[in-house]
């Protein structure tokens, strides 16, 4: 089993494996998105409290989940790359960052769109919103650091350090923001006011979360392939690839 895994840790074999996997995951992504959006918009009942506006949670909640989950995945790959000096793991980490940042931004944006009709304001300094904003800063920091370093090996390692420092800090940041929020009760709106969700709503949300997951896999695979080509452009297997293409 172990040998099998290490085979795909070589960029060249990963490149072809990813190439085969992308179409499968793309189709799954599209199918899940269609299913999820259909459930979200047509099957799920109208919420008696929030009427139609609530439907944005079908994208908002999965995006928020993905934003946090992807940061952990990114940091884990970066850590593996740092510990075992496997180039591919670091490349995957680099490939995840923009998708993670995109989901973070999406979660913030849809949150604002939701907040306006619900609370009458685009933005509240709620603990979750603030933490999400800080998460966006962490993603941007990671990407900016990697972009500023020319040597890819140093970029990988430096990115890993900052990602890990971020992971250690996220619980502390979340906890402090929450504390800070309770100290300033006046400005907050409770986000957990909604009554029990209908099962169809929940199903729709899970399908959407799965769709976002699949989407992330597709995009990360594609981006990893591009990074592999860019970094390995002087190797023989890439030039062979160009010859056959």
């Amino acid at each position, binding site marked *: 089993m172990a040998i099998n895994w290490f085979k795909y840790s070589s960029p060249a074999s990963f490149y072809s494996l990813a190439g085969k996997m992308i179409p499968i995951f793309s189709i799954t992504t599209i199918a899940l998105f269609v299913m999820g959006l259909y459930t979200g918009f047509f099957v799920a009942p109208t919420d008696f409290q929030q009427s139609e506006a609530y439907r944005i949670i079908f994208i908002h909640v999965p995006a928020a989940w993905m934003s946090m989950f992807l940061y952990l995945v990114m940091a884990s790959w970066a850590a593996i790359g740092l510990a075992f000096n496997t180039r591919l793991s670091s490349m995957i980490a680099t490939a995840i960052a923009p998708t993670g940042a995109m989901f973070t931004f999406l979660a913030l944006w849809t949150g604002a769109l939701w907040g306006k009709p619900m609370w009458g304001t685009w933005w509240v300094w709620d603990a979750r919103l603030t933490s999400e904003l800080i998460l966006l800063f962490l993603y941007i920091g990671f990407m900016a*650091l990697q972009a500023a370093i020319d040597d890819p090996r140093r970029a990988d390692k*430096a990115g890993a*350090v900052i990602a890990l420092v971020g992971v250690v800090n996220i619980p*502390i*940041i979340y906890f402090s923001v929450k*504390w800070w929020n309770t*100290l300033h009760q006046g400005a907050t709106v409770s986000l957990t006011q909604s009554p029990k969700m209908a099962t169809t709503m929940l199903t729709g949300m899970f399908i959407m979360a799965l769709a976002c997951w699949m989407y992330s896999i597709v995009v990360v695979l594609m981006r990893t392939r591009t990074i592999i080509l860019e970094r390995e452009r002087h190797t023989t297997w890439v030039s062979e690839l160009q010859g056959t293409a």
Partner: protein
Amino acid sequence: MFLWVIQRDLLLAMRQRADVLTTLFFFIIVVSLFPLGVGPEINMLRAMAPGVMWVAALLASMLSLERMFSSDYLDGTLEQMLLSPQPLSLVVLGKVLAHWLVTGVPLVLIAPVLGIQFNLPMDALLVLTASLLLGTPVLSLIGAIGAALTLGLRGGGVLVSLLVLPLYIPVLIFGAGAVEASSVGLGASTHLSLLGAFLLASLVFAPWATAAALRISME
């Protein structure tokens, strides 16, 4: 050896006093600009004071971060430190301590004076000083990681702020929160002990991470 590092950095700071004073005056100027921006209403200023002081302290300590390793990097002395038979994290700890003595301590000392400008009551001034005393070393410790990672990069100064400022948030919240809590009569001991916990945690963790970052950047 540890003492040699501190002594060396303090000696260098003494020879370049202007750098130290720049950070201090930056802090004073930023704090003094706020009343000009928001108006001289006493109650509002008093309410704002902890946040203003702490944000200014964050910015001032960040301003001096780039200097922590870059001049040693440029003249090759950092290379020699990496080759020291002592653990690199110990060398780093020495440098961070020196950095704090040079940039953090002056802020702690001047803060009560600036607090008077904002009409802070006596006990709030004490809490402010105590929170800065516990919090500014954390800023130097965390900042060192960012400074080590951005060593020798173009635009390193701006980049370091992008990396480090989000990590400063807990210190900001509990530092400013301590003063606020004491002024509404809640007592600041919880906040201060949490700041102390941050200090201990970063004392253990940050030098080690900085040492790893330096090795990566020097390779």
